[in-house]
């Protein structure tokens, strides 16, 4: 039960400019982006030099934060329709759109400049491509077609490539393998989220796959398919010699757990199973990346 003031208004938790800015940059997503970028850098660099490493992380964080902020600038109306997002600073009216837009543009530019100066031009270009795909392609498509999730997975999969290119200045096969793992992982992950919040997405007029899939059969098929595709791609680092046999067996076990969870969700098609899949997916990715990094460190 909410506390009431004398005039009967509900007391809201203290919202300051700082807490609003933090909400604008979606810190949990930005943190996940940083974990994948750090893994890409760690795998690419023969040794970690602290200045390029931390500059790459900061530059990537600024671009990811800018993309999240600009996404919210363009989605004020739909965010206002959904329970999950209506208390964000822009739909709740605590901040003006132009201020948020200026903040988003500024930090994105700062991120790209930092990446170009401290890492290399290729990484800065990948950062700007991520921003462009997220804000100018994925965001408007969210209101049009369920394929927005597939498009949105592209900018979501570029950060580990950025880590790799920052360390090597090359867009080689290893970078594409990291891209493949991230891209395929996102689908069961986001389908689980979209399944849990499908009524909310419907209110927000966002035609995610589970929204227009009453029986859940399309969502079930795609969860299963992408988890199945992830398994061989996640084994590639070991097959290609990027990592050790220890990684192979670890990634195989983790991939089978992920696949098992996706298969169970596809079979029972309920919210409880989708929540389990979401938790498994959130654990799977850092564990696979940690395994990749750890096996490399042990080998060295």
């Amino acid at each position, binding site marked *: 039960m909410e506390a009431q003031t004398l005039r009967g208004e509900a007391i809201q938790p203290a919202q300051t400019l700082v807490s609003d800015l933090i909400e604008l940059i979606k810190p949990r997503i930005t943190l996940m982006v940083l974990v994948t970028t750090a893994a890409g850098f760690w795998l*690419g660099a*023969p040794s970690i030099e602290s200045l390029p490493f931390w500059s790459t992380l900061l530059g990537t964080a600024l671009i990811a934060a800018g993309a999240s902020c600009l996404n919210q600038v363009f989605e004020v109306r739909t965010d206002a329709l959904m329970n999950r997002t209506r208390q964000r600073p822009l739909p709740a009216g605590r901040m003006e759109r132009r201020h948020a837009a200026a903040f988003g543009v500024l930090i994105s530019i700062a991120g790209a400049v930092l990446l170009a100066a401290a890492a290399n031009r290729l990484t800065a270009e990948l950062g700007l491509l991520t921003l462009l795909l997220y804000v100018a392609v994925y965001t408007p498509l969210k209101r049009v*077609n*369920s*394929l927005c999730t*597939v498009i949105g997975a592209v900018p979501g999969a570029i950060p580990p490539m950025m880590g790799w290119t920052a360390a*090597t200045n090359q867009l*080689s*096969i*290893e970078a*594409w*393998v990291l891209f*493949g793992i991230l*891209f*395929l992982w996102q*689908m069961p992950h986001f389908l689980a989220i979209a399944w849990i919040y499908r009524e909310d997405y419907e209110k927000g007029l966002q035609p995610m*796959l589970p929204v*227009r*899939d009453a029986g859940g059969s*399309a969502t079930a*098929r*795609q969860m*299963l*398919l*992408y988890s*199945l*595709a992830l*398994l*061989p*791609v996640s*084994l*590639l680092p*070991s*097959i*290609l*010699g*990027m990592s050790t*046999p220890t990684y*192979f067996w670890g990634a*195989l076990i983790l991939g089978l757990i992920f696949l098992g969870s996706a298969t169970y969700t596809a079979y029972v098609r309920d919210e409880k199973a989708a929540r389990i899949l979401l938790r498994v997916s959130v654990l799977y990715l850092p564990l696979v990346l940690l395994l990749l990094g750890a096996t490399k460190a042990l080998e060295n």
Partner: protein
Amino acid sequence: MQTKIFWICGIVFFAVQIQILFSLLRQRRQANAENTEAIHAEIVWTLVPAALVTAIALMIWQQGPFERPGAVPAATIEHTRSIEGS
């Protein structure tokens, strides 16, 4: 052993992918105007992972034998051995 498991995983994926694709194509033939768009979108959903896996496979095939960053290229090792042997 590892390569075998890898290939089995790849083959299972492509087998399921083809099965889903054929089932969607069958559904499309019987579809009414309302769900045609949804089936078309799902056909693209289904083709994307296969396209990605194929693209990565082609890149690996094009690159030839894999060299780890910082590793001594296989050709150099062969060359050193031939010098040592002579």
